[in-house]
């Protein structure tokens, strides 16, 4: 009686590993969650100080704050690791092209495993980038709210502001006349406040002129070189952050397709391994009853 050999008796260990490990690889690719919950964070606050920062300086200040945070450090490390992993993939791809037989099979398996690791790292990095951009977008939105609150301090504010502007306008219009009338009819010298105020105003005017010409105080320029207000600049930053988040979503789709390709390649590799093993096997390919009829015709 012909004994049907057990599968693992004649199997090459490499092929055996492929047969068991590759399905696991495929399963893990399909079951891996899109992004691991991150323990790192960056929590900038929409403070009065931040709202008052010159628009050109705001972005640099935030970038610097982010780079110092645990989220910034994690993103930087992740990008370095991805760059190294990219080099590993390139090396493996070259090695596969110049190899044959079992070594090639082994290298293809290694290549798949490295591609899977690369995708994991890219997914994790995108999760960090998304966290960064969402935090930034929320911050800019908070700053916009802050700015709106400052501009509109509550019901009735418009009426108060209108009255204040009218009062200031009347004061400025009559300021010189008041001084002339008062001091010509009075023996009293100008008050210390008035003297000091005039002196300080000259100093203030010089400082204001220097501030207006300072490069970091220059208004941000929009399209067609139109200066933007602080509110417009913040709105632009919010939409930039949103645009980057949309790009990340598109990148996640690309990573999804890459993962699917790795899974299909892994199944293909497992299939190739099994085909090669079966071709060398002693097991009869056809086990149809009709082919064994001769065993039963003679006693």
């Amino acid at each position, binding site marked *: 009686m012909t004994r049907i050999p057990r599968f693992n008796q004649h199997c090459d260990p490499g092929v055996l590993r492929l047969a068991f490990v590759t399905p696991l690889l495929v399963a893990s690719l399909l079951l891996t969650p899109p992004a691991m919950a991150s323990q790192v964070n960056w929590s900038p606050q929409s403070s009065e100080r931040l709202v008052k920062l010159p628009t050109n300086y705001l972005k640099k200040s935030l970038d610097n704050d982010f780079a110092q945070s645990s989220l910034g450090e994690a993103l930087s490390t992740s990008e370095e690791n991805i760059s190294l992993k990219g080099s590993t993939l390139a090396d493996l791809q070259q090695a596969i092209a110049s190899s044959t037989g079992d070594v090639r099979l082994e290298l293809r398996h290694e290549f798949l495993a490295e591609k899977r690791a690369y995708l994991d790292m890219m997914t994790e990095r995108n999760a960090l980038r998304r966290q960064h951009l969402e935090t930034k977008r929320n911050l800019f939105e908070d700053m916009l709210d802050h700015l709106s609150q400052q501009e509109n301090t509550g019901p009735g504010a418009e009426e108060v502001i209108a009255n204040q502007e009218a009062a200031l306008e009347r004061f400025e219009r*009559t300021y010189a006349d008041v001084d002339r009338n008062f001091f010509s009819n009075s023996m*009293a010298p100008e008050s210390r406040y008035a003297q000091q105020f005039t002196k300080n105003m000259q100093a203030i005017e010089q400082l204001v002129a220097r501030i207006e010409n300072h490069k970091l105080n220059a208004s941000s320029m929009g399209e067609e070189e139109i200066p933007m207000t602080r509110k417009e600049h913040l709105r632009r930053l919010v939409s930039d952050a949103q645009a980057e988040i949309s790009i990340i979503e598109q990148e996640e789709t690309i990573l999804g397709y890459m993962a699917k390709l790795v899974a299909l390649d892994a199944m293909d590799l497992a299939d190739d391994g099994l085909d090669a093993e079966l071709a060398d096997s002693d097991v009869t390919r056809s086990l149809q009853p009709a082919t064994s009829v001769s065993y039963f015709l003679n006693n």
Partner: protein
Amino acid sequence: MLIQSFKTMLMASAVIAFISTVAQAGTLENLERERAQTVNYFLDSNLQPNERHARIEVSKRRLIDMERMVLRDNSLRGKTTPIVRRAFLNYDVTFMAHSATEKNLTMLDNWLDQFSVNTDSLMSAKIGRR
């Protein structure tokens, strides 16, 4: 180099934070106190005319400075507290020193005028029992 620039940035932030916390406090309250004192001089029947005039002149100099402090105080801009709301509702009453000098009137005349009390109305008034 990085540490140096970080320190510089921290310093800049601290300076900006300082600027943002600087605010003039109580300019309007000071003006209101001085104005109340001036109105007391207007109405104090124990004061002799010369003494009243001298006190009001001193008050006027102080009021001119205080009124300017209030008008230049940016921290009051858009504030909807009752005291700010009321203060800017009537320039002639709140900024009585400026208003009077602008109109070339005494502060007392200008102030009474705001309540429709003037020489003509006083002269035509009759003493009687209500």
